[in-house]
């Protein structure tokens, strides 16, 4: 089992061949990232796939909720936030893929899972937008390979429900449990 701690969460990958903090900033670690590129939080390798994981823990999700805007200014502001987050997630994936290409680690399908503390409805909107732009699948008839095989945006409850072999907990909860 591989245990990875990132951004206040602890993941326990029971069946992973490898799993590590991808955007590692500690120079002393062999997984130090060290390139002027963006990076997802965690990469996990399995027999038949790589999974890139990006984490975002928000207190207030409403700043991303475009349909809920009350005024034109509010709408523009929320659109900007939603677009910013979508782009942030998109470019993190693309840079990570490039980095992994340079590592010769793109030999298996890549799944991108963002764990964001939104409700399911807002996560669904983010997922739809992100899938279109990432892009998932072959974006052109000229492509032979895909960048991302799939992309999903889930909250912690959905993560644990869908990936029972990769349970995640909040670090504060883990610490309290251990105390």
């Amino acid at each position, binding site marked *: 089992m591989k245990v990875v701690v990132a951004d206040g969460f602890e993941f326990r990958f029971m069946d992973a061949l490898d799993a590590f903090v991808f955007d590692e900033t500690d120079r002393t670690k062999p997984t130090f990232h060290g390139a002027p590129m963006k990076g997802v939080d965690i990469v996990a390798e*399995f027999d*038949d*796939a790589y*999974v890139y994981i990006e984490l975002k823990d928000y207190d207030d*999700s*409403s700043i991303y*909720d475009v349909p*809920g805007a*009350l005024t034109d200014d509010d709408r523009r502001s929320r659109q900007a936030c939603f677009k910013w987050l979508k782009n942030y997630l998109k470019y993190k994936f693309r840079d990570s893929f490039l980095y992994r290409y340079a590592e010769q680690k793109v030999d298996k399908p890549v*799944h991108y899972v963002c764990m964001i503390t939104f*409700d*399911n*409805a807002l*996560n*669904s909107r983010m*997922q739809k937008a992100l899938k279109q732009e990432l892009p998932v699948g072959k974006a052109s008839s000229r492509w032979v390979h895909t960048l991302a*095989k*799939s992309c*999903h*945006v*889930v909250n912690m*409850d*959905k993560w644990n*429900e*869908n*990936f*029972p*072999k*990769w349970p995640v907990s909040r670090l504060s909860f883990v610490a309290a449990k251990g105390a």
Partner: protein
Amino acid sequence: MIEHLALKNFAAFKSLSIDFSPGINVIIGENSTGKTHLLKAAYCLCTEAPLFKKKPDTSDDELEAALTTKLLRLFLPLDDKLGKMHHQGATEQASLSARFSQSQNIALTFSKNSKMLVLQNRGNYQPYLAESVFIPTKEVLSFMKGFNSLYEKYELSFDQTYQDICFLLDLPAVRKETLHEKSDWAMKEIKGICGGRFIFYGGGKVTFKTEHTEYSANSMAEGFRKVGTLSRLLETGVIKPGVSGPLFWDEPESNLNPKLMKLLVQILLELSRHGQQIILTTHDYVLLKWFDLLMDTGKGDHLRFHSLYHNPVSSEVKVFSTEDYLKITPNPIDEAFGFLINQEIENDMGGLGK
């Protein structure tokens, strides 16, 4: 204003108690968790204003008789028997009790063989009197012509809420000068978005009038008829913020387009800011979310979400109440989106992580 409702061995409920917000209460829950039952039970206990208006010295016996008839007509139990509303499997008496805003209260019981409700308590019940309104799921403007006389004469398969609302809609409009400022505002907003207004001629005849033409109410979109109902209740003064009793609304969202949904929530919030208590049920994410997004505690908004659910161990219906949208648990409306997410992960990632 109803503050508290407790139901024991009644209908879907083994034992349930709920504290209502004086502002807006949004009740959610999967089918068969008793949302409508809860709404009707609360409405029943809030609804005897006309009885006391007609006869201020109404006796306990008369009140029991009136409430028994009301309960039977609201729930339409099999064979018209009170006992059929007794919670399945329960042995103790069923009870319904409520507490209102100035410490008034009422408690009623019945058993499996009861023919009448038994009044256990009516502490200061009478002075509570402010007429409440129940807007049922189906809109009524399309069939209210002649409905009341038919309802009185024949056993129609509509519960009492339909007759009550048809009766209230046919009341005359209040004088312009007595119309509440916010009622006037809401009616204008509804007229603006619908492009006209419903005209009530009495006897259930309703039309829809624009600046140049008059149409049959039936030819109008169902969503318009729904907000038209609210507009009319404001016009007749049946809903008057700060004066009228609670407004109960069972699934207001059906057939409302998103534009109407936002307006409806804006109106309900504005009415509640001026003292109108509102208790509604919904299955709709957009309606639920509009409340969350439009509420403004700075304007004194008070919103409480109540989630009805089956306890997984006992199967009893329980309620979880919260004022924080993100803390609604369980939230079957958001979970519907969750099921879609699960299926997409299943389709795209197969057995990974499982």
